[in-house]
């Protein structure tokens, strides 16, 4: 029982991290109908920027305060992501308005190649560390309930907390601010939003900025967990089943989907993996999402797809 619970909690925390990446997909899809394959590249780019700025800027300015150095790096990387967002909107997406979904998807794939290349050219292509002071030591919980307690990874726990806080902030931003309301209006109906005077281009820029910040937080957490390297882009591939399971248009869906996928992955790997040779995590997530889709083709919380002739 203790072991099961341990796997379950591990899965839930991993799931929180997936939803962090999935959130980036959902935000952009909701606001502009673009399925942003470049989210993985953005995560890598942001993480690279963060890691290198944390190295360069304090050395340049002579700061040796740990918190301040990380803060400066975070702000600088955030600014870089804003520039990236602006460039993507200005140079690529603005010219692709009204194209088919597939074309847009391929365009974001092109953007992801571009970001991969330019990120590694500017910031280097070795493995870098992001040290934001995440505790690495494991803790034991529920020791008085189970014998031996439940082993929890403190780092995962903090990461999940950060993810939860970010999701909360995003929800507040979307529900309570004027910009958030405009974003929701655009997501609802482009033309109607435009007709009441919401500037589409600015909204798209904002949404890519938000996605950039989400990518930065995701890159920071994943980077401090796994190290900043090219394989970070595969995190996006692992987050894709989360997106379709939760529904492409739903923020809560990304969270719930992330939790389901995280738990499903861990449980399948532990209980099913040994029988079939292990390493089934990746495709199991996809198959799990597929099974859900067979019952709800628009994902758990996605908007119902209505076909009209």
């Amino acid at each position, binding site marked *: 029982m203790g072991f099961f619970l341990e796997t379950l909690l591990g899965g839930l925390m991993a799931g929180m991290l997936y939803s962090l990446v999935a959130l980036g997909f959902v935000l952009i899809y909701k606001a502009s109908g673009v399925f942003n394959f470049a989210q993985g590249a953005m995560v890598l780019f942001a993480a690279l920027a963060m890691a290198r700025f944390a190295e360069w800027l304090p050395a340049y300015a002579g700061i040796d305060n740990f918190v301040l150095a990380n803060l400066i790096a975070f702000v600088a990387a955030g600014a870089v992501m804003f520039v990236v967002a602006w460039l993507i909107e200005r140079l690529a997406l603005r010219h692709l308005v009204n194209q088919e979904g597939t*074309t847009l998807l391929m*365009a974001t794939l092109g953007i992801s190649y*571009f970001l991969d290349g330019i990120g590694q050219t500017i910031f280097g292509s070795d493995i870098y560390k992001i040290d934001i002071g995440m505790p690495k030591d494991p803790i034991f919980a529920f020791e008085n309930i189970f014998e031996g307690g439940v082993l929890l990874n403190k780092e995962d726990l903090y990461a999940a907390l950060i993810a939860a806080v970010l999701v909360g902030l995003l929800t507040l931003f979307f529900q309570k601010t004027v910009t958030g309301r405009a974003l929701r209006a655009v997501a609802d109906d482009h033309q109607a939003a435009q007709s009441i005077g919401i500037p589409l281009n600015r909204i798209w820029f904002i949404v890519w900025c938000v996605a950039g910040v989400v990518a930065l937080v995701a890159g920071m957490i994943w980077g401090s967990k796994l190290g900043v390297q090219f394989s970070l882009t595969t995190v996006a591939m692992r987050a894709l089943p989360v997106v379709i399971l939760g529904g492409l248009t739903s923020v809560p869906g990304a969270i719930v989907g992330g939790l389901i996928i995280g738990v499903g992955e861990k449980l399948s790997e532990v209980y099913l993996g040994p029988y079939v*040779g292990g390493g089934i995590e*990746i495709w199991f997530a996809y198959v799990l999402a597929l099974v859900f*889709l067979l019952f709800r*083709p628009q*994902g758990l919380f996605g908007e119902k797809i209505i076909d009209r002739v």
Partner: protein
Amino acid sequence: MFYRENGQFKTSYRADQQIFGITQDRVAVLLLVAAAFLVVPVITSEYMFRAILIPFVIMSLAALGVNILVGYCGQISLGSGAFMAVGAYAAFNFFVRVQGMPLLLALLLGGVCAAAFGILFGLPSLRVKGLYLAVATLAAQFFSDWMFLRIKWFTNDAPSGSVQVSDLQVFGIPIASPISKYLFCLTILVVMALGAKNLVRSAIGREWMAIRDMDVAAAVIGIRPMYAKLTAFAVSSFIIGVAGAMWGFVHLSAWEPAAFSVDISFKLLFMVIIGGMGSIMGSFFGAAFIVVLPIFLNQFLPFVGSLVGVEISTSGISHAELIIFGALIVWFLIVEPHGLAKLWSTGKQKLRLWPFPH
């Protein structure tokens, strides 16, 4: 002046239904095929065969398969690499495990296995549509990556996980030299392209296009979505599977699962979109673009670097390749979202009137 159909009257249904209705087109295509078979082997160097022509021919075939599914039937698939892998490994198993298995039959059986795999992973398309389907087809990709890495039976218990084939021959002719490999692939490509072209202008092809344009409306006028979608998956993955088997057998001759990674799925989709969705001709253009571009950049960038006096490191070149490749793709999608095939038809239209302005 030279390219116009004036005076070419069709007097029978047979003449009206030819693939190339205009005499000039027919002659041009025949000349092109003849040149590919007779002239190219004489004038081309061995490096060109290995690096460009053989990959181009095989990738055109694969892109053709993807185009049937994505361009004609409208089902976006990111699992093409998996279909290639299934074709390659199935053909490998038939070839190695069955004594005296002819190469051609092994390739075709590989295609048949890929078709079965395609139908299996095409089943969700009956319920799941659009981008959801695109992501769902990634399941096929990751499943096949895992399957050929972990299940040792498929790789004939090779300890390193890499498999190889040797002694390829067709009807007693060895397929060893680059020229023979090229001609072998080209023959299969021409036969399959002809078949595909005829298929997409037959009843089933029209059903696919109806499904692509609006599946609900197609169902209303009596097209069975299940039959149409699954046949598209089957035919497409058969062709992709044969191409995958050829990629493994003829081009690589020794390969491991990473040869058919998700990257190849993306590249195939690029070929289809850049070449032109729903166009057999477009598959060739797209394949040529995607195969030649990295090689060109690889050769061209050090040259540019030496011109401005900068020595670019190998990793620098590979990053610059990524940057330029990505930028070109985006640029291309912006200026011609309908692909090279559209440029081609615009060009033909212009040529019709040339040299008169109207």
